């Protein structure tokens, strides 16, 4: 670095050397760059160099090298390798002293030497520029890789775009940049670099490069403006466009990866929720129903893949009676499973209190309403059976009709008499009914997972094969057999269609 790095220093050091050769002479060094018509006086030794060079060259263009005596002294001009001109003007110490032919030869030799030194200077300058350019390319590649790693780490999408914009601007030497995110024609987000500016002030296509991509119904556009150089604004290069495209692609890939990751995490959370819901439901659904003297009772619950909120039970009560319950929560997943759990807990507690069924329903309505969101409620059939005389006090809160097969072969439908539990926050007057199940009669409770089971043609089971007819047509000796036959028939109907809802049924037969 201590070597001469510019033409001014070259002129200064050369003038010191020349002063030793032409003792007592006044020496000027002049320079004219290739794109200029003006001479610069680099070393002013009072040799009236500017006057001499004007006398010497006049309006002529210098072709290569010339040397001439002028009225003032001796002047030499040489065309250098980069088309610039170096001139040396000598003035003798007195008007009487004249420059000799030897002096002319000496000056000519010195100019050759200067030319060689100037070529070396140009060579060093080119070498430095080449090294700078190569280093800058390495920097661009390195930064591209680093930015790719960094944008994949960032949590906030806004900082991700800002980072990519900053890197793109600095690597392409853009003076400013902007990222716009549009939804349709509306700009929903803007990021500027280095600070907010108006794009209207920028003219000329060559002063701008842009790239864009679409993600999640949004258009992302990256724009860079005014490529800088030491000489002012210059057009962007092809490699600048390539760099901007590459950085925008990294942002796009990062956004997509983040989206896929979030989706995967959401799926994992959903699967975990489903496992929790299934575990809750499994704990509540009875493994074995109690034996009721004089009756044969069987039930089933087949949860669907997405875990619904079906519930059934046959609960022995303190006075020898039994509570027959079937319920269906609107919705699926953990919220539905939790609501079933609440129903099970409150129902068990209220049944122990031996309160009237209508009052029990009112209380359940209130607690379920408090425990659930607006879109959640429970349809339920609750019956209190006195096994001895077959009396059934029952209440249907918005549930599917329960079928009762009478001894005469008729089917009695025990339909809804009240709103689903937890649907409204009001003291709805639930009314219970009393019927008697005679010997040989059968009671069938079910949820809509049976009536609304669909096949591959999206036909409903109850529409194609009315459940009432199945109930009437299948009267096996054992309740368990009825349940098995029903499930077989449903599966035969649905075929390969996936189970869309929980299938739950409770069948009670009073022995003859």
């Amino acid at each position: 670095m201590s070597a001469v790095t510019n033409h001014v220093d070259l002129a200064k050091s050369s003038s010191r050397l020349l002063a030793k050769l032409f003792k007592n002479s006044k020496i000027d060094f002049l320079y004219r760059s290739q794109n200029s018509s003006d001479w610069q006086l680099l070393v002013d030794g009072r040799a009236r160099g500017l006057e001499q060079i004007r006398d010497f060259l006049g309006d002529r263009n210098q072709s290569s090298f010339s040397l001439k005596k002028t009225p003032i002294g001796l002047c030499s001009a040489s065309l250098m390798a980069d088309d610039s001109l170096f001139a040396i003007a000598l003035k003798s110490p007195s008007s009487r002293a004249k420059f000799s032919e030897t002096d002319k030869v000496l000056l000519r030799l010195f100019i050759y030497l200067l030319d060689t030194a100037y070529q070396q200077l140009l060579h060093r300058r080119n070498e430095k520029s080449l090294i700078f350019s190569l280093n800058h390319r390495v920097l661009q590649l390195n930064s591209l890789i680093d930015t790719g790693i960094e944008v994949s780490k960032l949590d906030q999408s806004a900082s991700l775009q800002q980072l990519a914009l900053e890197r793109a601007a600095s690597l392409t030497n853009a003076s400013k940049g902007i990222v716009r995110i549009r939804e349709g024609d509306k700009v929903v987000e803007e990021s500027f670099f280095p600070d907010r500016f108006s794009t209207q002030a920028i003219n000329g296509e060559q002063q701008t490069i842009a790239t864009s991509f679409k993600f999640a119904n949004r258009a992302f556009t990256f724009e860079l403006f005014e490529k800088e150089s030491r000489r002012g604004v210059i057009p962007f290069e092809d490699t600048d466009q390539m760099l901007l495209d590459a950085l925008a692609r990294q942002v796009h890939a990062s956004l997509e990866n983040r989206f896929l990751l979030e989706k995967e995490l959401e799926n994992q959370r959903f699967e975990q929720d489903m496992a929790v819901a299934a575990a809750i439901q499994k704990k509540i659904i009875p493994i074995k129903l109690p034996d009721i003297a004089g009756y044969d009772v069987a039930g089933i619950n087949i949860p669907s893949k997405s875990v619904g909120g079906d519930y059934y039970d046959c609960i022995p009560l303190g006075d020898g009676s039994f509570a027959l319950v079937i319920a269906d929560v609107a919705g699926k997943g953990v919220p539905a499973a939790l609501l079933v759990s609440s129903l099970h807990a409150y129902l068990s507690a209220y049944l122990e209190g031996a309160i009237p069924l209508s009052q029990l329903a009112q209380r359940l309505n209130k607690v379920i309403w408090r425990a659930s969101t607006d879109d959640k409620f429970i349809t339920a059939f609750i019956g209190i059976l006195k096994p001895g005389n077959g009396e059934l006090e029952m209440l249907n809160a918005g549930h599917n009709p329960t079928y009762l097969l009478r001894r005469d072969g008729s089917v009695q439908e025990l339909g809804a008499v009240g709103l689903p539990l937890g649907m409204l926050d009001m003291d709805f007057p639930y009314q219970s009914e009393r019927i008697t199940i005679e010997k040989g009669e059968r009671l069938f409770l079910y949820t809509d997972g049976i009536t609304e089971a669909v096949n591959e043609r999206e036909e409903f089971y109850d529409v194609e094969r009315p459940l009432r007819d199945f109930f009437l047509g299948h009267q096996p000796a054992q309740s368990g057999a009825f349940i098995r036959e029903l499930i077989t028939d449903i599966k035969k109907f649905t075929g390969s269609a996936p189970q869309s809802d929980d299938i739950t049924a409770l069948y009670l037969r009073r022995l003859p």
Partner: protein
Amino acid sequence: MDQPFALTSDLKDNCLVIATSGYVNNVGGEAIAKEFTRHFEKGTKKIVINLAKSKVVNSIGMSFLIEIIEQLEDAGGKLVFTDLDPAVEKMLAIMGLFKYAGKEPTVEDALRVLTSRK
């Protein structure tokens, strides 16, 4: 969003301390060079450039910094960069600036290094 380029300077222990904020580009580099030249011509040869608030430097800005380093090298002076953002530090390293300029964590560290130089 970054701020527009700004610069402050201070003379401490015969060392010029320049602190920048914003994008070191053509405008920023030129401003640094101008401030340097003003003091260099008066004989200041020890320079500290604090880039704590400049997270982005482009190659035009770097070319000005290289020129400052060259002038100081020729005059037997020294430049030390401080408070470098890791990305900026890597850029300056790749461009070869640390072959001739120093880097220190803080301005105080840089001043200690420069004032101990003979």
